Protein backbone atom coordinates (compact mmCIF):
# COMPACT_ATOMS: atom_id res chain seq x y z
CA UNK A 1 0.00 0.00 0.00
CA UNK A 2 1.27 3.44 -0.89
CA UNK A 3 1.79 6.28 1.57
CA UNK A 4 0.46 9.49 0.06
CA UNK A 5 1.03 13.01 1.31
CA UNK A 6 -2.17 15.02 1.16
CA UNK A 7 -1.14 18.70 0.83
CA UNK A 8 -3.76 19.57 3.43
CA UNK A 9 -3.58 16.69 5.93
CA UNK A 10 -0.12 15.16 5.62
CA UNK A 11 0.99 11.58 5.00
CA UNK A 12 -1.80 9.00 5.04
CA UNK A 13 -2.22 5.41 3.80
CA UNK A 14 -3.51 4.84 0.28
CA UNK A 15 -6.79 3.39 1.59
CA UNK A 16 -7.94 6.92 2.51
CA UNK A 17 -7.63 8.09 -1.09
CA UNK A 18 -9.37 7.61 -4.40
CA UNK A 19 -7.41 7.84 -7.63
CA UNK A 20 -8.63 10.48 -10.05
CA UNK A 21 -6.73 9.75 -13.25
CA UNK A 22 -4.39 11.97 -15.23
CA UNK A 23 -4.13 15.56 -13.99
CA UNK A 24 -4.41 18.77 -15.98
CA UNK A 25 -6.85 17.41 -18.59
CA UNK A 26 -8.62 20.63 -19.58
CA UNK A 27 -12.33 20.43 -20.18
CA UNK A 28 -13.27 21.96 -23.56
CA UNK A 29 -14.37 25.57 -23.18
CA UNK A 30 -17.12 25.40 -25.79
CA UNK A 31 -18.15 21.77 -26.26
CA UNK A 32 -20.46 22.52 -29.18
CA UNK A 33 -17.52 23.68 -31.27
CA UNK A 34 -15.31 20.67 -30.54
CA UNK A 35 -14.33 18.40 -33.41
CA UNK A 36 -14.56 14.62 -33.05
CA UNK A 37 -10.76 14.54 -32.65
CA UNK A 38 -10.93 17.02 -29.77
CA UNK A 39 -13.58 14.90 -28.07
CA UNK A 40 -11.42 11.80 -28.43
CA UNK A 41 -8.53 13.72 -26.94
CA UNK A 42 -10.58 14.89 -23.97
CA UNK A 43 -12.56 11.71 -23.31
CA UNK A 44 -10.22 8.87 -24.16
CA UNK A 45 -6.59 9.72 -24.86
CA UNK A 46 -4.29 9.70 -21.85
CA UNK A 47 -0.53 9.91 -21.54
CA UNK A 48 -0.20 6.51 -19.80
CA UNK A 49 3.39 7.56 -19.04
CA UNK A 50 6.07 5.05 -18.18
CA UNK A 51 7.94 7.38 -15.86
CA UNK A 52 6.76 10.66 -14.37
CA UNK A 53 3.00 10.93 -14.31
CA UNK A 54 0.94 13.91 -13.18
CA UNK A 55 -2.26 12.62 -11.64
CA UNK A 56 -5.17 13.55 -9.42
CA UNK A 57 -6.02 12.00 -6.09
CA UNK A 58 -8.90 12.74 -3.74
CA UNK A 59 -8.50 12.41 0.00
CA UNK A 60 -11.98 10.87 0.28
CA UNK A 61 -11.65 9.57 3.83
CA UNK A 62 -9.95 12.71 5.09
CA UNK A 63 -10.43 16.29 4.04
CA UNK A 64 -12.33 15.20 0.93
CA UNK A 65 -10.33 17.50 -1.32
CA UNK A 66 -8.77 16.82 -4.71
CA UNK A 67 -5.05 17.47 -5.20
CA UNK A 68 -2.39 16.64 -7.76
CA UNK A 69 0.66 14.40 -7.53
CA UNK A 70 3.75 13.53 -9.52
CA UNK A 71 4.49 9.82 -9.36
CA UNK A 72 7.04 7.66 -11.15
CA UNK A 73 5.00 4.81 -12.64
CA UNK A 74 8.09 2.59 -12.96
CA UNK A 75 8.51 2.36 -9.17
CA UNK A 76 5.44 4.12 -7.68
CA UNK A 77 7.57 6.72 -5.83
CA UNK A 78 5.76 10.01 -5.25
CA UNK A 79 7.98 12.94 -6.24
CA UNK A 80 5.59 15.62 -5.04
CA UNK A 81 1.99 16.44 -4.24
CA UNK A 82 0.53 19.89 -4.84
CA UNK A 83 -2.79 21.68 -4.60
CA UNK A 84 -5.30 22.13 -7.40
CA UNK A 85 -4.47 25.21 -9.45
CA UNK A 86 -0.77 25.00 -8.63
CA UNK A 87 1.89 23.96 -11.12
CA UNK A 88 4.17 21.01 -10.28
CA UNK A 89 7.02 22.11 -7.96
CA UNK A 90 10.18 22.68 -10.10
CA UNK A 91 12.41 20.93 -7.55
CA UNK A 92 10.40 17.71 -7.99
CA UNK A 93 10.70 17.91 -11.76
CA UNK A 94 14.48 18.41 -11.45
CA UNK A 95 14.71 15.40 -9.16
CA UNK A 96 12.70 13.49 -11.74
CA UNK A 97 15.18 14.41 -14.45
CA UNK A 98 18.09 13.24 -12.29
CA UNK A 99 18.96 9.75 -11.06
CA UNK A 100 16.05 7.60 -9.90
CA UNK A 101 15.58 7.11 -6.15
Amino acid at each position, binding site marked *: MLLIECPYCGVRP*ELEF*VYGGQAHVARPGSPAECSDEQWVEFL*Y*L*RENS*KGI*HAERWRHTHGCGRFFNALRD*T*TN*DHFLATYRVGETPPPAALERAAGPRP
Partner: protein
Amino acid sequence: MQRFSGFSLLRRGLSGHRDWQPQWRKAQPKAAYDAVIVGGGGHGLGAAYYLAKEHGLTNVAVLEKGWIGGGNTGRNTTIIRSNYLRDESAALYDHALKMWEGLSQDLNYNVMFSQRGVMMLAHTVHDVQVFKRHVHANRANGVDNEWLTPEEAQAVCPLLQTDDIRYPVRGAAFQRRGGTARHDAVAWGYARGADALGVDIIENCEVTDIRRDGRGAVQALETTRGLIQARKVGVCAAGNTSVILRMAGVRLPLESYPLQALVSEPVKPIFPCVVMSNTIHAYISQSDKGELVIGAGTDAYTSYTQRGGLHVSSHALEAICELFPMFRRMRMLRNWGGIVDVSPDRSPIIARTPVPGLYVNCGWGTGGFKATPGSAHLFAWTIAHDKPHPINAPFTIERFREGRLIDEAAAAAVAH
Protein backbone atom coordinates in the same frame (compact mmCIF):
# COMPACT_ATOMS: atom_id res chain seq x y z
CA MET B 1 10.60 -30.56 -35.06
CA GLN B 2 10.33 -33.64 -32.91
CA ARG B 3 6.65 -34.57 -32.82
CA PHE B 4 5.04 -35.67 -29.60
CA SER B 5 3.02 -38.87 -29.50
CA GLY B 6 2.41 -41.68 -27.07
CA PHE B 7 4.94 -43.72 -28.99
CA SER B 8 7.65 -41.01 -29.01
CA LEU B 9 7.19 -40.47 -25.26
CA LEU B 10 7.52 -44.21 -24.64
CA ARG B 11 10.55 -44.58 -26.92
CA ARG B 12 12.41 -41.66 -25.33
CA GLY B 13 11.30 -42.78 -21.91
CA LEU B 14 13.21 -46.00 -22.45
CA SER B 15 16.39 -43.97 -22.98
CA GLY B 16 15.75 -41.80 -19.94
CA HIS B 17 14.28 -38.82 -21.87
CA ARG B 18 17.81 -37.64 -22.70
CA ASP B 19 17.48 -37.23 -26.47
CA TRP B 20 14.85 -34.50 -26.70
CA GLN B 21 15.88 -31.46 -28.72
CA PRO B 22 15.27 -27.89 -27.55
CA GLN B 23 11.72 -26.86 -28.48
CA TRP B 24 12.87 -23.82 -30.45
CA ARG B 25 16.15 -22.35 -31.69
CA LYS B 26 17.97 -19.51 -29.94
CA ALA B 27 17.72 -17.30 -33.02
CA GLN B 28 20.04 -14.37 -33.67
CA PRO B 29 18.38 -11.30 -35.19
CA LYS B 30 18.78 -10.96 -38.97
CA ALA B 31 19.16 -7.57 -40.65
CA ALA B 32 15.71 -7.68 -42.23
CA TYR B 33 12.38 -9.53 -42.01
CA ASP B 34 9.14 -9.42 -43.99
CA ALA B 35 7.26 -8.95 -40.74
CA VAL B 36 8.21 -8.46 -37.11
CA ILE B 37 6.00 -9.06 -34.08
CA VAL B 38 6.89 -7.04 -31.00
CA GLY B 39 6.05 -8.99 -27.86
CA GLY B 40 6.67 -12.69 -27.24
CA GLY B 41 3.58 -13.59 -25.26
CA GLY B 42 0.81 -15.90 -26.41
CA HIS B 43 -0.80 -13.31 -28.69
CA GLY B 44 2.49 -12.39 -30.40
CA LEU B 45 3.88 -15.90 -30.75
CA GLY B 46 0.50 -17.08 -31.99
CA ALA B 47 0.34 -14.27 -34.55
CA ALA B 48 3.77 -15.29 -35.88
CA TYR B 49 2.64 -18.93 -35.99
CA TYR B 50 -0.49 -18.13 -38.04
CA LEU B 51 1.43 -15.74 -40.32
CA ALA B 52 3.73 -18.62 -41.20
CA LYS B 53 1.12 -21.36 -41.24
CA GLU B 54 -1.85 -19.71 -42.93
CA HIS B 55 -0.36 -16.83 -44.88
CA GLY B 56 2.97 -18.25 -46.03
CA LEU B 57 4.93 -15.47 -44.36
CA THR B 58 7.89 -17.32 -42.86
CA ASN B 59 10.56 -14.59 -42.86
CA VAL B 60 9.16 -13.39 -39.55
CA ALA B 61 10.70 -12.53 -36.18
CA VAL B 62 9.17 -12.24 -32.72
CA LEU B 63 11.05 -9.76 -30.53
CA GLU B 64 10.70 -10.18 -26.79
CA LYS B 65 12.39 -7.83 -24.33
CA GLY B 66 12.51 -10.48 -21.60
CA TRP B 67 11.82 -14.18 -22.00
CA ILE B 68 8.87 -15.57 -23.92
CA GLY B 69 5.72 -15.98 -21.91
CA GLY B 70 7.26 -13.98 -19.03
CA GLY B 71 4.72 -11.18 -19.22
CA ASN B 72 0.98 -11.46 -18.81
CA THR B 73 0.88 -14.85 -20.56
CA GLY B 74 2.66 -16.35 -17.57
CA ARG B 75 0.91 -14.15 -15.00
CA ASN B 76 -2.79 -14.59 -15.64
CA THR B 77 -5.27 -16.96 -13.99
CA THR B 78 -5.78 -19.01 -17.22
CA ILE B 79 -9.55 -18.65 -17.38
CA ILE B 80 -11.19 -19.22 -20.75
CA ARG B 81 -14.78 -18.28 -21.57
CA SER B 82 -16.72 -16.50 -24.32
CA ASN B 83 -19.92 -15.37 -22.59
CA TYR B 84 -19.60 -11.70 -23.51
CA LEU B 85 -22.65 -9.52 -23.99
CA ARG B 86 -22.25 -7.68 -27.30
CA ASP B 87 -22.59 -9.38 -30.68
CA GLU B 88 -19.10 -8.24 -31.75
CA SER B 89 -17.51 -9.57 -28.57
CA ALA B 90 -19.40 -12.87 -28.63
CA ALA B 91 -18.14 -13.46 -32.18
CA LEU B 92 -14.57 -12.56 -31.20
CA TYR B 93 -14.31 -14.55 -27.99
CA ASP B 94 -16.21 -17.56 -29.32
CA HIS B 95 -13.90 -17.64 -32.34
CA ALA B 96 -11.10 -18.03 -29.79
CA LEU B 97 -12.97 -20.64 -27.74
CA LYS B 98 -13.57 -22.77 -30.84
CA MET B 99 -9.87 -22.58 -31.64
CA TRP B 100 -8.96 -23.61 -28.07
CA GLU B 101 -10.94 -26.80 -28.61
CA GLY B 102 -8.54 -27.95 -31.32
CA LEU B 103 -5.37 -26.16 -30.28
CA SER B 104 -3.47 -29.04 -28.69
CA GLN B 105 -3.95 -31.14 -31.83
CA ASP B 106 -3.07 -28.26 -34.14
CA LEU B 107 0.14 -27.47 -32.26
CA ASN B 108 0.96 -31.10 -31.40
CA TYR B 109 1.53 -29.70 -27.95
CA ASN B 110 -0.66 -30.33 -24.92
CA VAL B 111 -1.94 -26.97 -23.72
CA MET B 112 -4.02 -28.82 -21.11
CA PHE B 113 -7.24 -27.15 -22.18
CA SER B 114 -9.88 -28.28 -19.72
CA GLN B 115 -13.55 -27.40 -20.29
CA ARG B 116 -14.51 -27.65 -16.65
CA GLY B 117 -17.04 -24.81 -16.81
CA VAL B 118 -16.94 -21.19 -15.70
CA MET B 119 -19.46 -20.03 -13.11
CA MET B 120 -20.13 -16.32 -12.59
CA LEU B 121 -21.90 -15.63 -9.32
CA ALA B 122 -24.77 -13.20 -8.90
CA HIS B 123 -25.07 -11.65 -5.45
CA THR B 124 -27.58 -8.85 -5.94
CA VAL B 125 -30.85 -8.27 -7.80
CA HIS B 126 -28.87 -6.22 -10.30
CA ASP B 127 -26.39 -9.07 -10.81
CA VAL B 128 -29.26 -11.47 -11.44
CA GLN B 129 -30.77 -9.19 -14.06
CA VAL B 130 -27.43 -8.53 -15.78
CA PHE B 131 -26.38 -12.18 -15.89
CA LYS B 132 -29.79 -13.36 -17.11
CA ARG B 133 -29.48 -10.77 -19.87
CA HIS B 134 -26.04 -12.19 -20.65
CA VAL B 135 -27.45 -15.72 -20.76
CA HIS B 136 -30.15 -14.72 -23.24
CA ALA B 137 -27.82 -12.60 -25.38
CA ASN B 138 -25.25 -15.41 -25.48
CA ARG B 139 -27.81 -18.01 -26.50
CA ALA B 140 -29.08 -15.73 -29.26
CA ASN B 141 -25.47 -15.59 -30.49
CA GLY B 142 -25.00 -19.35 -30.34
CA VAL B 143 -22.76 -19.15 -27.27
CA ASP B 144 -23.62 -21.60 -24.49
CA ASN B 145 -24.46 -20.05 -21.14
CA GLU B 146 -27.10 -21.11 -18.67
CA TRP B 147 -28.71 -19.79 -15.51
CA LEU B 148 -28.25 -21.80 -12.33
CA THR B 149 -30.24 -21.41 -9.10
CA PRO B 150 -28.14 -21.28 -5.90
CA GLU B 151 -28.92 -24.98 -5.34
CA GLU B 152 -27.86 -25.87 -8.89
CA ALA B 153 -24.67 -23.84 -8.47
CA GLN B 154 -23.91 -25.72 -5.30
CA ALA B 155 -24.53 -29.02 -7.06
CA VAL B 156 -21.85 -28.07 -9.61
CA CYS B 157 -19.46 -26.69 -6.99
CA PRO B 158 -20.22 -28.32 -3.62
CA LEU B 159 -17.71 -26.17 -1.73
CA LEU B 160 -19.62 -22.99 -2.52
CA GLN B 161 -21.27 -21.26 0.43
CA THR B 162 -24.43 -19.64 -0.92
CA ASP B 163 -26.20 -18.32 2.17
CA ASP B 164 -25.33 -17.04 5.62
CA ILE B 165 -22.71 -14.77 4.06
CA ARG B 166 -22.53 -11.02 3.62
CA TYR B 167 -23.50 -11.23 -0.08
CA PRO B 168 -25.58 -14.40 -0.49
CA VAL B 169 -25.38 -16.13 -3.85
CA ARG B 170 -28.67 -15.57 -5.70
CA GLY B 171 -27.76 -17.66 -8.71
CA ALA B 172 -25.04 -17.98 -11.32
CA ALA B 173 -24.39 -17.90 -15.03
CA PHE B 174 -22.56 -21.03 -16.09
CA GLN B 175 -20.69 -21.59 -19.35
CA ARG B 176 -19.90 -25.29 -19.60
CA ARG B 177 -17.56 -24.90 -22.58
CA GLY B 178 -15.41 -22.49 -20.57
CA GLY B 179 -12.50 -23.62 -18.45
CA THR B 180 -8.77 -23.27 -18.13
CA ALA B 181 -5.55 -24.08 -20.00
CA ARG B 182 -1.89 -24.26 -19.05
CA HIS B 183 -0.68 -20.72 -19.82
CA ASP B 184 3.04 -21.54 -20.16
CA ALA B 185 2.23 -24.38 -22.53
CA VAL B 186 0.36 -21.97 -24.78
CA ALA B 187 3.44 -19.76 -25.15
CA TRP B 188 5.76 -22.74 -25.56
CA GLY B 189 3.48 -24.54 -27.98
CA TYR B 190 3.14 -21.51 -30.23
CA ALA B 191 6.89 -20.80 -29.99
CA ARG B 192 7.69 -24.37 -30.97
CA GLY B 193 5.17 -24.35 -33.82
CA ALA B 194 6.31 -20.98 -35.17
CA ASP B 195 9.99 -21.91 -34.90
CA ALA B 196 9.38 -25.11 -36.88
CA LEU B 197 7.88 -23.00 -39.68
CA GLY B 198 10.96 -20.77 -39.79
CA VAL B 199 10.02 -17.92 -37.44
CA ASP B 200 12.94 -16.45 -35.45
CA ILE B 201 12.12 -16.04 -31.76
CA ILE B 202 14.51 -13.46 -30.34
CA GLU B 203 14.54 -13.02 -26.59
CA ASN B 204 16.22 -10.26 -24.57
CA CYS B 205 15.63 -7.89 -27.47
CA GLU B 206 13.86 -4.66 -26.53
CA VAL B 207 12.57 -2.24 -29.16
CA THR B 208 13.92 1.23 -28.46
CA ASP B 209 12.64 3.16 -31.48
CA ILE B 210 10.61 2.83 -34.67
CA ARG B 211 12.13 4.30 -37.85
CA ARG B 212 9.82 5.56 -40.58
CA ASP B 213 10.43 6.49 -44.20
CA GLY B 214 9.61 9.72 -46.06
CA ARG B 215 5.89 8.93 -46.36
CA GLY B 216 5.66 7.91 -42.71
CA ALA B 217 5.55 4.14 -43.22
CA VAL B 218 7.39 1.75 -40.94
CA GLN B 219 10.93 1.08 -42.14
CA ALA B 220 12.90 -0.49 -39.31
CA LEU B 221 13.06 -1.11 -35.59
CA GLU B 222 15.94 -0.01 -33.41
CA THR B 223 16.47 -2.63 -30.73
CA THR B 224 18.92 -3.44 -27.97
CA ARG B 225 20.29 -6.10 -30.36
CA GLY B 226 20.72 -3.82 -33.37
CA LEU B 227 18.70 -2.40 -36.23
CA ILE B 228 16.08 -4.69 -37.79
CA GLN B 229 14.46 -3.73 -41.11
CA ALA B 230 10.78 -4.58 -41.45
CA ARG B 231 7.95 -3.19 -43.57
CA LYS B 232 5.29 -4.78 -41.40
CA VAL B 233 5.37 -4.54 -37.63
CA GLY B 234 2.70 -5.97 -35.34
CA VAL B 235 2.72 -4.86 -31.73
CA CYS B 236 1.40 -7.25 -29.03
CA ALA B 237 3.00 -5.58 -26.04
CA ALA B 238 0.07 -5.56 -23.58
CA GLY B 239 0.77 -3.05 -20.79
CA ASN B 240 3.70 -1.54 -22.70
CA THR B 241 1.76 -0.90 -25.92
CA SER B 242 1.48 2.85 -25.26
CA VAL B 243 5.25 3.07 -24.91
CA ILE B 244 5.95 1.27 -28.20
CA LEU B 245 3.28 3.07 -30.22
CA ARG B 246 4.47 6.45 -28.98
CA MET B 247 7.77 5.71 -30.77
CA ALA B 248 5.80 5.95 -34.02
CA GLY B 249 3.83 8.98 -32.88
CA VAL B 250 0.60 7.02 -32.33
CA ARG B 251 -1.41 7.69 -29.19
CA LEU B 252 -3.88 5.08 -28.05
CA PRO B 253 -6.83 5.21 -25.64
CA LEU B 254 -5.14 2.89 -23.14
CA GLU B 255 -4.16 3.02 -19.51
CA SER B 256 -1.88 0.45 -17.87
CA TYR B 257 -2.81 -0.93 -14.47
CA PRO B 258 -1.34 -3.63 -12.22
CA LEU B 259 -3.51 -6.74 -11.90
CA GLN B 260 -2.63 -9.30 -9.25
CA ALA B 261 -2.96 -13.04 -8.88
CA LEU B 262 -2.00 -15.56 -6.21
CA VAL B 263 -1.56 -19.29 -5.85
CA SER B 264 -1.97 -21.38 -2.73
CA GLU B 265 0.01 -24.36 -1.57
CA PRO B 266 -0.93 -27.39 -3.71
CA VAL B 267 -3.67 -29.68 -2.43
CA LYS B 268 -5.51 -32.72 -3.75
CA PRO B 269 -8.16 -32.17 -6.46
CA ILE B 270 -10.96 -30.39 -4.68
CA PHE B 271 -12.28 -27.67 -6.96
CA PRO B 272 -14.27 -28.84 -9.99
CA CYS B 273 -14.76 -25.66 -12.05
CA VAL B 274 -13.91 -21.98 -12.26
CA VAL B 275 -15.86 -19.64 -9.99
CA MET B 276 -15.77 -15.91 -10.38
CA SER B 277 -17.55 -13.10 -8.63
CA ASN B 278 -17.49 -9.61 -10.09
CA THR B 279 -19.41 -8.14 -7.21
CA ILE B 280 -17.08 -9.16 -4.41
CA HIS B 281 -13.98 -9.23 -6.65
CA ALA B 282 -12.50 -12.67 -6.72
CA TYR B 283 -12.07 -15.61 -8.98
CA ILE B 284 -10.70 -19.04 -8.31
CA SER B 285 -9.88 -22.36 -9.94
CA GLN B 286 -7.49 -25.21 -9.23
CA SER B 287 -4.49 -25.94 -11.41
CA ASP B 288 -3.54 -29.48 -12.37
CA LYS B 289 -0.60 -29.14 -9.96
CA GLY B 290 -3.16 -28.67 -7.19
CA GLU B 291 -2.65 -25.00 -6.40
CA LEU B 292 -5.69 -22.82 -6.01
CA VAL B 293 -5.26 -20.05 -8.57
CA ILE B 294 -6.85 -16.84 -7.33
CA GLY B 295 -7.29 -13.56 -9.16
CA ALA B 296 -7.64 -10.17 -7.53
CA GLY B 297 -8.74 -6.83 -8.92
CA THR B 298 -6.66 -4.10 -10.50
CA ASP B 299 -4.99 -1.46 -8.41
CA ALA B 300 -6.57 1.99 -8.46
CA TYR B 301 -3.71 3.77 -10.21
CA THR B 302 -1.78 3.34 -13.45
CA SER B 303 1.62 1.75 -13.03
CA TYR B 304 4.29 -0.32 -14.78
CA THR B 305 5.72 -1.94 -11.65
CA GLN B 306 4.32 -5.49 -12.11
CA ARG B 307 3.28 -5.52 -8.47
CA GLY B 308 0.22 -4.26 -6.71
CA GLY B 309 -0.90 -3.27 -3.25
CA LEU B 310 -1.27 -5.93 -0.57
CA HIS B 311 -4.70 -4.64 0.35
CA VAL B 312 -5.96 -5.49 -3.16
CA SER B 313 -4.95 -9.14 -2.95
CA SER B 314 -6.07 -9.50 0.66
CA HIS B 315 -9.44 -8.07 -0.37
CA ALA B 316 -9.75 -10.88 -2.94
CA LEU B 317 -8.81 -13.44 -0.29
CA GLU B 318 -11.49 -12.10 2.05
CA ALA B 319 -14.04 -12.75 -0.68
CA ILE B 320 -12.67 -16.26 -1.31
CA CYS B 321 -12.81 -17.09 2.41
CA GLU B 322 -16.40 -15.90 2.53
CA LEU B 323 -17.48 -18.02 -0.44
CA PHE B 324 -15.34 -21.03 0.51
CA PRO B 325 -14.94 -21.07 4.30
CA MET B 326 -12.93 -24.31 4.19
CA PHE B 327 -10.05 -22.39 2.50
CA ARG B 328 -9.64 -20.03 5.46
CA ARG B 329 -6.63 -21.86 6.87
CA MET B 330 -4.94 -22.41 3.57
CA ARG B 331 -1.59 -20.75 2.94
CA MET B 332 -0.78 -18.68 -0.11
CA LEU B 333 2.45 -19.62 -1.85
CA ARG B 334 3.13 -16.70 -4.19
CA ASN B 335 1.53 -13.53 -5.46
CA TRP B 336 2.53 -11.31 -8.35
CA GLY B 337 1.25 -8.62 -10.67
CA GLY B 338 1.03 -8.09 -14.39
CA ILE B 339 0.49 -4.83 -16.25
CA VAL B 340 -2.75 -4.80 -18.21
CA ASP B 341 -3.68 -2.28 -20.88
CA VAL B 342 -7.26 -1.21 -20.29
CA SER B 343 -9.29 0.50 -23.01
CA PRO B 344 -12.20 2.87 -22.25
CA ASP B 345 -14.84 0.33 -23.34
CA ARG B 346 -12.97 -2.73 -21.97
CA SER B 347 -12.79 -4.19 -25.47
CA PRO B 348 -9.57 -4.84 -27.38
CA ILE B 349 -8.12 -3.09 -30.40
CA ILE B 350 -6.96 -5.41 -33.21
CA ALA B 351 -6.32 -3.07 -36.07
CA ARG B 352 -4.19 -1.11 -38.48
CA THR B 353 -2.81 2.16 -37.11
CA PRO B 354 -2.54 5.51 -38.91
CA VAL B 355 1.11 4.56 -39.63
CA PRO B 356 1.35 2.37 -42.78
CA GLY B 357 2.80 -1.03 -41.93
CA LEU B 358 2.18 -0.70 -38.21
CA TYR B 359 -0.49 -2.91 -36.63
CA VAL B 360 -1.60 -3.18 -33.05
CA ASN B 361 -3.25 -5.84 -30.92
CA CYS B 362 -3.93 -4.38 -27.49
CA GLY B 363 -6.50 -3.26 -24.98
CA TRP B 364 -7.24 -6.77 -23.73
CA GLY B 365 -7.24 -5.36 -20.22
CA THR B 366 -7.83 -7.89 -17.50
CA GLY B 367 -8.90 -10.73 -19.78
CA GLY B 368 -6.64 -11.38 -22.76
CA PHE B 369 -5.53 -14.94 -22.11
CA LYS B 370 -8.91 -16.45 -23.01
CA ALA B 371 -8.70 -14.92 -26.47
CA THR B 372 -5.12 -15.96 -27.26
CA PRO B 373 -5.68 -18.26 -30.28
CA GLY B 374 -8.47 -16.16 -31.78
CA SER B 375 -6.63 -12.90 -31.24
CA ALA B 376 -3.43 -14.29 -32.74
CA HIS B 377 -5.30 -15.76 -35.71
CA LEU B 378 -7.16 -12.52 -36.50
CA PHE B 379 -4.09 -10.35 -35.97
CA ALA B 380 -2.08 -12.48 -38.40
CA TRP B 381 -4.93 -12.17 -40.92
CA THR B 382 -4.99 -8.39 -40.46
CA ILE B 383 -1.22 -8.08 -40.96
CA ALA B 384 -1.16 -10.40 -43.97
CA HIS B 385 -4.08 -8.72 -45.77
CA ASP B 386 -3.46 -5.17 -44.54
CA LYS B 387 -7.13 -5.00 -43.56
CA PRO B 388 -9.15 -6.43 -40.69
CA HIS B 389 -10.86 -9.81 -40.77
CA PRO B 390 -14.68 -9.43 -40.53
CA ILE B 391 -14.57 -10.63 -36.89
CA ASN B 392 -12.11 -7.97 -35.74
CA ALA B 393 -13.35 -5.24 -38.10
CA PRO B 394 -15.35 -3.53 -35.30
CA PHE B 395 -12.33 -3.50 -32.97
CA THR B 396 -10.63 -0.46 -34.49
CA ILE B 397 -8.92 2.56 -32.94
CA GLU B 398 -11.38 4.80 -34.83
CA ARG B 399 -14.39 3.42 -32.92
CA PHE B 400 -13.66 5.94 -30.15
CA ARG B 401 -13.96 8.81 -32.60
CA GLU B 402 -17.02 7.36 -34.31
CA GLY B 403 -18.80 6.53 -31.07
CA ARG B 404 -19.02 2.84 -31.96
CA LEU B 405 -17.87 1.64 -28.55
CA ILE B 406 -18.18 -2.04 -27.64
CA ASP B 407 -18.95 -1.67 -23.97
CA GLU B 408 -17.98 -4.79 -22.04
CA ALA B 409 -17.42 -3.21 -18.65
CA ALA B 410 -20.06 -5.56 -17.22
CA ALA B 411 -18.37 -8.64 -18.67
CA ALA B 412 -14.89 -7.81 -17.44
CA ALA B 413 -14.12 -10.01 -14.52
CA VAL B 414 -12.85 -7.41 -12.11
CA ALA B 415 -13.47 -3.80 -11.23
CA HIS B 416 -11.25 -1.47 -13.20
